C-alpha cells in the first residue's frame, strides 16, 4: 500500500478545514441573517429534522424562502454588498469554513484507498431499482459487485444508459451521490473496497478513531 497514512493524518491535523460555498439556488432579493465570523450549525436531531442556522432569506415572487446551513462551521466570507439586492441564480453569497470531524477525515482518506467508480460524463445518475432496494435493506452489509455488473443508470438527454461496473470485484463501501443527482464528469459515484484491502481499510479507520478527537 503506497499511501502514507502518517503524512495524510499530519496534513489533516495541521489544517482540518474544508470550505463550503453557498450559492443562491435561484433569483431573488437577498437579506442576510448571519454576520462574518459567526458560528453556524448544520441540521440536527436524530433524523436531521431540525434545520441548521438560518443563513439568509431569498425572496422571489413574494415567497421569502429561508435558506439554512447544511454545515457546521464559521462564516468565512460574506458578500454584504449584496444585502437587499436582486441576485441571479448561482450567485455566491458566502463561504462556510467547516472543521472536519473524525468521520469526515475517515471519509476523505477512504476516498484515497477505495476503488472509486467515477461518472464517465456529466449526467444524472441512478442506481438500478434492485440495487436501491438492496442498499436500503442491507445498510450494514454492503453490496458486493463484480466486474460487468450493471448497477448504475446514467440519464443523459432524456435517455437512460446502463453502465457496467468496470473495476475489480469488491464491496460497495461508500456511495457518494443521491438518486438522480446531476454528477459532474469524473466525480465519484461510489467506492468499492477490494476484499484483500478490507483489513487495511479497517486498520485505517481504527487508527483514526483512536488518534483523532473532535
Amino acid at each position: 500500500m503506497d499511501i502514507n497514512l502518517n503524512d495524510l493524518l499530519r496534513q489533516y491535523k495541521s489544517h482540518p478545514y474544508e470550505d463550503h460555498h453557498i450559492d443562491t439556488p435561484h433569483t431573488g432579493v437577498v437579506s442576510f441573517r448571519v454576520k462574518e465570523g459567526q458560528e453556524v450549525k448544520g441540521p440536527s436531531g436524530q433524523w436531521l429534522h431540525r434545520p441548521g442556522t438560518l443563513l439568509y432569506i431569498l425572496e422571489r415572487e413574494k415567497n421569502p424562502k429561508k435558506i439554512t446551513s447544511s454545515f457546521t462551521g464559521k462564516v468565512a466570507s460574506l458578500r454584504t454588498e449584496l444585502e437587499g439586492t436582486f441576485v441571479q441564480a448561482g450567485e455566491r453569497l458566502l463561504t462556510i469554513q467547516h472543521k472536519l470531524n473524525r468521520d469526515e477525515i475517515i471519509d476523505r482518506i477512504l476516498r484515497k484507498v477505495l476503488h472509486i467508480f467515477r461518472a464517465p460524463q456529466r449526467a444524472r445518475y441512478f442506481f438500478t431499482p434492485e440495487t436501491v432496494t438492496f442498499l436500503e435493506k442491507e445498510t450494514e452489509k454492503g453490496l458486493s459487485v463484480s466486474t460487468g455488473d450493471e448497477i448504475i443508470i446514467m440519464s443523459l438527454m432524456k435517455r437512460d444508459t446502463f453502465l457496467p461496473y468496470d473495476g475489480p470485484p469488491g464491496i460497495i463501501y461508500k456511495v457518494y451521490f443521491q438518486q438522480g443527482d446531476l454528477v459532474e464528469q469524473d466525480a465519484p459515484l461510489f467506492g468499492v473496497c477490494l476484499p484483500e484491502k478490507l483489513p487495511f481499510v479497517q486498520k485505517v479507520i481504527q487508527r483514526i478513531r483512536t488518534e483523532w478527537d473532535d
Partner: protein
Amino acid sequence: MENKRILIANRGEIAIRIMNACDELGLDYVVVYTAEDSASLHVRKALEAKGPEAAYRICNYKDPNEIFSVADHSGADAIHPGYGFFSENFRFARRAALRNRPIVFIGPRWEVIRDLGSKINTKRIAKQLGIPVIPGSDEPLYSEIEAEVLAEKLFYRQKKQGIEKPSILVKASAGGGGMGIEEVNHLDTFRQIYRRIQNYAKRQFGDEGVLIEQCMRDYHHLEVQLLCSQHGEIVHFSTRNCTIQSTGRQKRVEAAPGFDPRSIGYPFDAAKVLEQMINYSIQLAEKVKYDNVGTWEWIVTRDGKPYLLEVNTRIQVENEISARISRIAGYDGPVNLIREQIRAALGEKLGFSQNDVTFSGTSIELRIVAEDVKRGFAPWCGKITTFSFPEKPWVRVYSHVPQDRPYEIPTEYDPNLALAIIWGMNTEQARERARDFLSQTVIRGEDSRGGPIVTNLSYLKKRLDDVLKF
C-alpha cells in the same frame, strides 16, 4: 408599442430569432440563461447588443417563478416564450395575465391555449363545426360495451372504404407522447387490448378513460400557418409539409407550401385539398376567437382527405419557411412571423389582409442535429471545434453554436445545432440549393473519448429526394 421591453424566455436559435424580431420593431429585450448555457450565443448577443443588464442567469428555463422574477426585476412588459418550455402552457399565460403586475404573454389568450391544448377538446369543437377529424371517440370512454360498439363501427367504415388492412388505435386518454398506445388489427383482439390499456391508464394516470380512433397509414403531415390579431383579423400564410420525421416523430426536413401540384403529381387534387384545409382552419380560428400565431396540424391521406389533428398555439420552429414564400403588399422587407406575432400580442392591428399576401417559390428547412441516425437518432454530445456553412443569398442559418470558438453541447438539452432555411423559385431549385448547402457545410468535433462528431447531414441530404412527394 415603443419603449416596451420583452423578456425572452427561451434559449438557442429561437431566442436569437426573437431578438432579431425585437430589433426590427425597435423593442428592447432581456434574455435568461442557465449556468449550462453561459457560453450560448443568445447570451453573448444580448450582452453585446444591450449591455450587462440584458442577460439574467436563472436556475431553470422551466421554472415559471424565475421568469416572472426576472421579468419584474428587469421591468419587462411582455414575455416571449418561443417554442417548447412555456409556449403552450396556459397556466403560465394565465399567471402572466392575472398577477398583480400583469405581463403580456406573447401568444394567444390563455383560455384559447387551454381549450385548444387538449386534443380531445379540439376534436369536439371541430366536429361541431363539421371539420373532418380522425374518426373515433371525442371523449374518454369508460364503458367497455360502448367502446366495442365504436370499434366495430370504425372497422366497418374502413372496410367500406376499401382499406386493405383496417386497424384502430387504443390510447389512454390521460396519456401523451406515445405512451399507452396500442394498435388493434382485428375486432376479436379489441377487448383484450382495451382492458390492457384501461388498466395501464388507471395505474399510470389514475384515470381509466380510453380513446379509440382509426389508425391512419400512408399520409402526409401538413400544417396551416395562421396569424390572427386581437381585432378579429385572420390571415393565413399558406401551408407546410412536415412529413419527413425521425423515428421519434421529430421533424427533420420541412417544406412550404404543403404540396406543389405544379411540378409534382399527386393522386388527388392537391390544390383543392390545401384550400379546404386553410378554410377549415380559419373557420375554427374564428370560432374560438384566436388572437395570435398558430399552426393547424393536418394529415392528408392518399385518397386526398384531410383530417385535423391538433392546433399548436405557438410559433413553430419551421415558421420561417412560410415567411420565405410570402410577400406582404406594401411591405418591403422579408416577412417575419415572429415580428408579426409580437405585434399582435401587444395589441396592434395587422394592417394588411389576406389579399395583400402573395406566395412564390418553395422553401425548405433543414434541421441539423448531432445525432446518430443509424442508432435510432441517438443524441451525440461532446465538443464542436469547427462549424461553418456557405453564405448565400438564398439561405439563412440560425444557430446558437458559435463559429469562432469551440462549443460544448450542454447535456441537459436536445443537441440541435442549426436550422437552415433555403428558398428556390420552385421545388426543384430549392432542393438543388439545399443539396449544395449541405455539401458545403462543415462540422467537426469530438466527444469525451476522442471519437469524431456524428451528425445527420448525410441523412438530410438523402431525404431531400422525398420532399413534397406523396
